[in-house]
């Protein structure tokens, strides 16, 4: 391998650590470090407690059996899916600029690409294992399995990418676009005909059919490729774990050897893929999150102007107009809510009787998951400061008070979240599961909670600027930053809601009246928090240093 590539691999890793160290300097850096440490403790702490408690840590025997029977096949299917859906080999713009014209062979470049991405997968595997290792027989098996599994997926994707960057490049566009779907449909059809799925009506019959497919000798043999990874997860002791890890590494080495042996002319395809991907990321960074990478829709209708309201109206109008031009994230969130609602709408056991006074609690029960879901999904609904990451200098140049700017930037997302939640629960009201009147009474509470939720997103964004999508795919620090922000947001929101619940509890104890009254009693506290956060956002916006590039 070219020594320059080895140098680059090492220095980039050290450079990332150096960047992190520089970021933790100064009072703001120390605060950030404390935040990171806190979030890490919150994430890792409960997992360590689970490990330390043998009863909690004990893996369910039936789960182990299921994993043993289906794990290799599921993993194989995932690898095939990853491979056929791979967009191509990705190189960052700096890599294309500096490495492609350099006297470096294609094989060296490919090996560099593999090692570079592998580094990220190892970090991601360690991170993921914090949450998944408890499902392994032993934690060390869990950690090793997570890392090896992610590397396996990465290599599968790169193998597919290599194919599409060379052979696939010569295929006609419809073949490229629908090829993978066509292959999957053909496989599904063959499996269906083999097992007679079409005539099956019972779940057990379908399961039996799938089992018969699984037991097919050919599939059993192919599944041996992925079996070592599953065995690492279920290893009963260290020696067995090491043995199966070695077998897994052998599988990975074979994949790498195949890629090296092919030595395909992938450079042009890689340049095209990288350019396409960069364009997509730029669009996502400047225009609406990870779900709107395909660009704005063709809708061109204009919304009526809002009152000025210290500039907030104009800014909110601009954001709301953008909402109409980028319906994809909203449709996506709506779709996910619908998926969640479907089983709920079938739960006849929780359907309240009209006269039993259970309407409030049933509605609340329906509403809570919606609120939690939308709160977690706000990283994809970014019609606020986060969307304007590259336009903050312009916003600062406007003759508006920071508080007005903060309000204007929060309105669109808050309204959007509230409307989504209300539409979802109204659907349940139509089915008779939720109460419309309760829903109407709870609307101001919802609005305030959403304002606080969106406000927290924006506050942490302005304090710890980050892009909503990474500058390059697979940046481990990007994932870490997102998790940190999510942890801090959840913590702050929980504190806010806990304080807001105090008057509700008092009202409920004193009056023992309708739940709606207790819920409404939270509004003054929530409004106070909303005002406080908006003021803080205004202050943070005012002191935001636009001269510094926003880290990913």
């Amino acid at each position, binding site marked *: 391998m070219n*020594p*320059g590539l080895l140098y680059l691999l090492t220095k980039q890793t050290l450079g990332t650590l150096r960047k992190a160290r520089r970021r933790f300097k100064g009072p703001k850096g120390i605060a950030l470090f404390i935040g990171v440490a806190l979030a890490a403790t919150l994430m890792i702490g409960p997992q360590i407690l689970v490990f330390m408690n043998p009863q909690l840590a004990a893996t369910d025997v039936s789960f182990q059996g299921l994993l043993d029977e289906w794990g290799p096949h599921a993993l194989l299917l995932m690898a095939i899916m990853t491979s056929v859906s791979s967009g191509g080999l990705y190189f960052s*713009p700096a890599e294309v600029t*500096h*490495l492609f*014209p*350099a006297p470096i062979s294609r094989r060296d470049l490919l090996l560099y690409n593999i090692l570079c991405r592998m580094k990220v997968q190892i970090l991601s595997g360690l991170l993921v294992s914090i949450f998944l290792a408890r499902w392994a027989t032993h934690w060390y098996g869990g950690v090793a399995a997570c890392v090896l599994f992610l590397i396996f997926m990465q290599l599968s994707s790169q193998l597919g990418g290599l194919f599409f960057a060379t052979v696939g490049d010569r295929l006609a566009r419809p073949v490229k676009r629908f090829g993978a779907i066509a292959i999957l449909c053909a496989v599904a059809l063959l499996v269906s005909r083999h097992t007679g799925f079409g005539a099956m009506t019972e779940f057990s019959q379908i399961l039996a059919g799938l089992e018969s497919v699984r037991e097919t000798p050919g599939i059993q043999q192919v599944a041996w490729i992925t079996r070592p990874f599953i065995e690492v997860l279920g290893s009963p002791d260290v020696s067995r774990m090491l043995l199966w890890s070695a077998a897994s590494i052998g599988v990975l080495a074979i994949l790498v050897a195949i890629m090296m042996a092919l030595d395909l002319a992938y*450079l*042009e395809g890689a340049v095209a893929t990288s350019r396409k991907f960069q364009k997509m990321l730029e669009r996502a960074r400047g225009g609406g999150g990870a779900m709107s990478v395909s660009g704005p829709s063709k809708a061109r209708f204009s919304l009526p102007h809002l009152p000025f309201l210290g500039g907030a109206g104009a800014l909110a109008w601009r954001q709301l107009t953008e909402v109409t031009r980028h319906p994809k994230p909203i449709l996506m969130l709506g779709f996910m809510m619908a998926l969640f609602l479907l089983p709920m709408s079938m739960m006849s056991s929780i359907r309240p009787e009209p006269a039993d006074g259970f309407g409030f609690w049933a509605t609340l029960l329906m509403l809570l998951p919606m609120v939690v879901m939308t709160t977690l999904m706000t990283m994809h609904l970014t019609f606020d400061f986060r969307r304007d990451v590259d336009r903050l200098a312009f916003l600062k140049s406007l003759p508006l008070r920071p508080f007005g700017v903060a309000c204007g930037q929060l309105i669109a997302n808050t309204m959007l979240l509230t409307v989504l939640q209300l539409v979802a629960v109204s659907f349940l009201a139509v089915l008779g599961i939720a109460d419309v009147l309760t829903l109407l009474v709870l609307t101001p509470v919802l609005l305030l909670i959403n304002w606080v939720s969106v406000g927290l997103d924006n506050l942490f964004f302005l304090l710890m600027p980050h892009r909503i999508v990474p500058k390059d795919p697979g940046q481990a620090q990007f994932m870490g930053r997102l998790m940190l922000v999510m942890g801090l947001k959840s913590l702050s929101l929980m504190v806010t809601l806990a304080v807001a619940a105090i008057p509700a509890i008092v009202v409920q104890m004193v009056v023992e009246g309708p739940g709606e009254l207790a819920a409404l009693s939270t509004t003054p506290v929530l409004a106070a928090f909303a005002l406080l956060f908006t003021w803080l956002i205004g202050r943070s916006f005012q002191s935001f240093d636009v001269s510094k590039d926003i880290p990913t």
Partner: protein
Amino acid sequence: MDPDTVAVRVDNFTKVYDQRTAVDRLSFDVQRGEILGLVGPNGSGKTTTLRCISGILPPTSGSVLLLGHDVVKDPIAAKRNLAIVADDPNLFESLTVWEHLEFSAQVFGLQDWQARAEGLLEEFEITDRRQSLADELSRGMRQKVAICAAFLHEPAVLLLDEPLTGLDPHAIRNLYAALERQAKEGTAVIVSSHLLGQISSLCSRFLIIKNGRALQAGTIDEIRSQLDALPDDASLEDIFFHATDVGDETDAS
């Protein structure tokens, strides 16, 4: 082709993206010690040409030879004598300025490169930023780092795509001086730029392209003499407008 005199030979080179022809049967030579100005309107194929010469993209047809080495068939030997400064100074964000030079030295297998690197940093006035990370630099500074990294291994063929963007007047003057010095030492330089007034005094020859086709090639005097309607003192800008407008009329007819 004599690699002692001809550093770059582009022969009947065509590049097609999907179904769009970006460069159409382009042929030209660049001698050692020559500075060729590659000029043309937006989308004329300048960047594609430079990217294919540097081996980033393969030509759809035709050939590109660097010092006698085919950039497709023998890429490593061809690229050993090449450097390119891209239109966008993409640097590795977590590497310092000095580490970029160190990386370049490693890639090209240079020995005792430190003194030359120091000299380049001084020449382009970025010595005080040697420990800065790339993402702490302005665009102009990044451009300077990219130029220093390209100059480090003293390439026989130097390609610069819009190199003046973001540079301050001092840096432009220093870049010109460095390019002229390199050319005197035998380096073949190809500069693509829209700033015609800036490069007219730098380049010894020009190639005007539009829609991927060569419209005019030669020294300013040679091109001027080929275009009857132009006065004797016509500038590169006048020549460019005339040549590309005539190109438009030809396309229309």
